[in-house]
Structures are given as structure tokens and as C-alpha cells.
């Protein structure tokens, strides 16, 4: 028990990473190549931290405001960015991250610049983080089963077919940006309330790559994809603690290998494999029954 308790911060981090990975998962599922989650997370984190430390707003209210702020920011970003595709969209959303970062660095009156915001009350622990993951995961699961999830899937796979069936790509991409922004706003705020302080650099290139890797590694169709991706990429550095010097090398190599051999991600590949196996077995059973009867 005491040995497990030592891992509590790690579990908490893994759960918070899952929330942020969900924010990256939604656009990828909808065929939007957005890397903007880090920017939305920064908006949520700073909104929550500023409200809590300067104005003494209760954490729950801060989190709600951060979710709304992230969602609105996502909607505003979607207006120019949703019409872009592929690498252009990736680059433009990356530029958005850059803009938010420089704003956080330079608008010192509001953000205290590079020093960041400190003395944020510790309001998020393992329980709160777990509740957030279950809540967001459940909501995304329901959306995935709904008409909107069907729209995401067909737009991601083939936009031409989607429009031929009457799907509005603009509407679905807007929904994806808003959801991504709102979820990242939640993740950012919870991160702020979990770690006592935030600085602009946490929401930079490292976070962009980490979130992208989590979803690509885990899978971008099933909701469990980002969950598994977050577990692996949060736990891996811990497992590799012995190889301090080579840690990044091992991690990078693992990522390259998994993308090469499991391009759909761990979860989606496994699910596809299980499904095929069940179908083949059912088929074999039916054939056998036919022969014997």
C-alpha cells in the first residue's frame, strides 16, 4: 500500500494527461489535423489560475469557466482553421500554440510572464482527476455512438463520400474544434489545480508532441485509444528510469516502431484483430454446422 502511495503523483499525472489526450483525440477522429490542444489547455490553465489566485474564485467555478473559455477559443480558432486541411492545418494550429505562448510570456500584467503563476491552491487530487477522465470518456463514448460520431468517422475516412451523403464537413469540424477546446480547457485547469504553479513553457512544443504521440500510439477511433496512449507515455519514463541517458532515445525508438507496425494504434489494432478473430470463428462454426447437418 505504501509503495503504491508513492506512485500517486504519477497516477494523477497519467489521468490528467488522459484528459488532454482526449482533447487531441477528438479532432483526429473527425479528420481535423489540429495540434491546437496545447493552446486551448494554456487558455484553460491561465483562466483558472488567474481567477483562483487573484480573485479567490472557488476552484469548481474556475474549472467551469475554463471549460467555457476553452470551448469559445476553439470555436474562434475554427473559423479560419477549419477550412484548411492536412499539413496546412497542422502548421496553422501550431502557429496558434505559438501565439498563445508568446501572449502568456509577454502579457506580464496578466500572466506574470516567464515566472508563471504560483501558489495555486491544490484542489485536484487523484479522485478529481479520475472523475474527470470517466466523465469526459463517457461523454466522448456517447458522442462517438451518435450521429455526430458517424459523421466524424466518414469525414475522416473520405470527405468526398461524406459530402455526397449530405454531411456538413464545416459543422462537424466546428464541433470537433469546440469539443477539443472545451476538453483541453478542463485539462489545463485541472493541471493548474494539481501542480501549484504553471509556466508558459509547459504548453509548448513538448506538450504538442506528447499529446499527438499519445493518440497516435493508442488509437484515434476507440475512446480507449487516448487512455492507453496516456498510460504508456506517462509510465514509460518511469520504467526507463534506470536508463537515464538513453531515455529519450528508447522512447523515440518505441514510438517509431509502434507507428510503423501498428499504424492504427494499440487499441484500434487490437480491437480490429479481436473482431476479425470472432468473425472467423463464427464463420468456421457456421461452416462446420452446415457440413454436419
Amino acid at each position, binding site marked *: 500500500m505504501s509503495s503504491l502511495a508513492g506512485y500517486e503523483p504519477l497516477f494523477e499525472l497519467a489521468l490528467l494527461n488522459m484528459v488532454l489526450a482526449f482533447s487531441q483525440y477528438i479532432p483526429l477522429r473527425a479528420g481535423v489535423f489540429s495540434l491546437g490542444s496545447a493552446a486551448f489547455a494554456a487558455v484553460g490553465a491561465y483562466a483558472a489560475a488567474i481567477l483562483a489566485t487573484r480573485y479567490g474564485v472557488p476552484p469548481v467555478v474556475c474549472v467551469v469557466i475554463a471549460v467555457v473559455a476553452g470551448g469559445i477559443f476553439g470555436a474562434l480558432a475554427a473559423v479560419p482553421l477549419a477550412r484548411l486541411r492536412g499539413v496546412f492545418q497542422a502548421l496553422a494550429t501550431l502557429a496558434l500554440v505559438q501565439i498563445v505562448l508568446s501572449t502568456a510570456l509577454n502579457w506580464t500584467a496578466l500572466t506574470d510572464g516567464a515566472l508563471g503563476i504560483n501558489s495555486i491552491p491544490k484542489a485536484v487530487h487523484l479522485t478529481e482527476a479520475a472523475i474527470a477522465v470517466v466523465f469526459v470518456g463517457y461523454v466522448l463514448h456517447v458522442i462517438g455512438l451518435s450521429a455526430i460520431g458517424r459523421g466524424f468517422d466518414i469525414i475522416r475516412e473520405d470527405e468526398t*463520400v461524406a459530402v*455526397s451523403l449530405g*454531411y456538413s464537413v464545416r459543422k462537424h469540424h466546428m464541433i470537433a474544434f469546440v469539443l477539443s477546446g472545451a476538453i483541453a480547457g478542463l485539462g489545463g485547469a485541472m493541471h493548474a489545480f494539481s501542480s501549484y504553479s504553471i509556466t508558459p513553457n509547459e504548453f509548448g512544443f513538448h506538450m504538442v508532441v506528447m499529446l499527438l504521440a499519445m493518440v497516435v500510439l493508442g488509437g484515434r477511433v476507440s475512446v480507449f485509444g487516448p487512455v492507453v496512449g496516456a498510460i504508456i507515455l506517462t509510465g514509460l519514463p518511469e520504467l526507463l528510469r534506470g536508463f537515464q541517458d538513453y531515455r529519450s532515445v528508447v522512447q523515440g525508438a518505441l514510438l517509431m516502431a509502434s507507428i510503423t507496425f501498428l499504424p492504427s494504434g494499440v487499441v484500434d489494432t487490437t480491437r480490429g484483430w479481436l*473482431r476479425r478473430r470472432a468473425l472467423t470463428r463464427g464463420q468456421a462454426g457456421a461452416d462446420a454446422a452446415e457440413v454436419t447437418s
Partner: protein
Amino acid sequence: MSMLALQGVGRDFGGLPAVDSLNMSAERGRITGLIGPNGAGKTTVVNMIAGLLKLSRGQVLLDGEDVSTREAQELSRMGIARTFQNIRLVRDASVRDNVLAGFHLHEKTSTLANLLGLPSAFRERRALLARTDELLDRFGMTAMADWPAGSLSYGHQRRIEMMRALATEPRLLLLDEPVAGMNDAEAYKLAAIFREVADDGVAILLIEHNMRFVRRLCDHVCVLASGRLIAEGDAESVINDPRVIESYLGS
């Protein structure tokens, strides 16, 4: 008034016309054949009608309304559905999910109800799944419902394309070589379904290579060669038209 009328329609690629001065029409309740050698411009015509290619010249009228400049999504809402010659399915998704995607235009529950997972959204999903299963049954594909679409034969994949297009409940159905690669028995089974669909009042434009199939099924046939209409009429007279025979032999 025709369900579909093309008036002087043309489309250029790199300055050269792939389709030119095309006048033709498709009537409700009837199957209109569009035949012609490879590269004649048949798929280009379908893409223009469906809004995936802009017209260089001319007009497309749907039930009398000029729809030449409408987007594909709007045209689909107006009742145009099509299948793709180069099969385009979500390969990893099940047959059932591929067909279900075609019912989008019949979804009535609001975006908010879907986002919140309200019971109305789930009820609608169940109702659409029931309609999906009816289509699967009609095309004899119930046993394959759970298989990934990409794992099936081309013949079955073409059937999925057709079910998905029919799911939209179109007024005008564009079929781009729907029985390519099927044997006669399979093709005639589908022919019976096309006839039923037409009998329900849908206008069907059927692109096909197989002359026996066209002769048996089409009420009216248009022949395209090098982007121009070279003959039209009932199947028998068109197939025996010397210009048509020449265009096929010459290709």
C-alpha cells in the same frame, strides 16, 4: 418535366473538353443507360451532376430547377445519390456501419441531443439500424453485416455502395458501373432491385459496359464517345447503330 436534364453541358481538363455540348435527360420511374467506351466521359458526367466537378459550360436541371452551381452536400439534400466506380467505403468499418452512414439525411434529432446522449438520439439510432437491416436483407447481405467492408469481394463492396446510396432515399440515383466484375447471375439479381427502385418513382442513370445487361434493363440509352452524345434511343436500336459499333470497335 424530366427529373434530370443536361443542357449543353461541357467540362474541360487542361483546355481540352472531356465532355462537350451534352444534352440528355433521365425520367422518374425509368432506367436511363449511359454507355460508351473507356474514357468517353461517363464518370465526368456523373461527377458534374453530383456536384463534385464544376461545369465548364451548360446547365444541369433537377426537376426543372437549375442546380449547376450547387455544392455536392446541397445536391445530396435535394435528392441526388450516387455510387462510385472506384469503390469508396470505410474499409475498416463494418458493412452495417457503412450503410448506416447513408441515413444521415434522415436524422431528425438535434446536434445537442446527440452531444448529450439523450434518449431520443439512441432511439433514432435503433430505428435507423432497423432500416439498415432491411436494406441488408434486400441485398442478401445480412450474414456479412459485421464484417469489415474492406474484407469483402468487389461484388459485395459494390452492393454496400448501392445500399448506402439508397439509404439516402434519392429522387435521382446515379450508378457508376454498379455490376462491374460480377457474373450474370449476380448482376441480374441486382437488376431486379434497380427495377423495383425505379418503379417507386426514382430516376436512375446507369453507367454500364455490359451490353446484355443494358439491353435487358434500360428503358432508354445514351451513347457517349469522346465526350459527345453520338446516339440515343431504345437499347435495341442504339446497340445496332453503326456509329455506336464503330466507336466501340475504334477504341
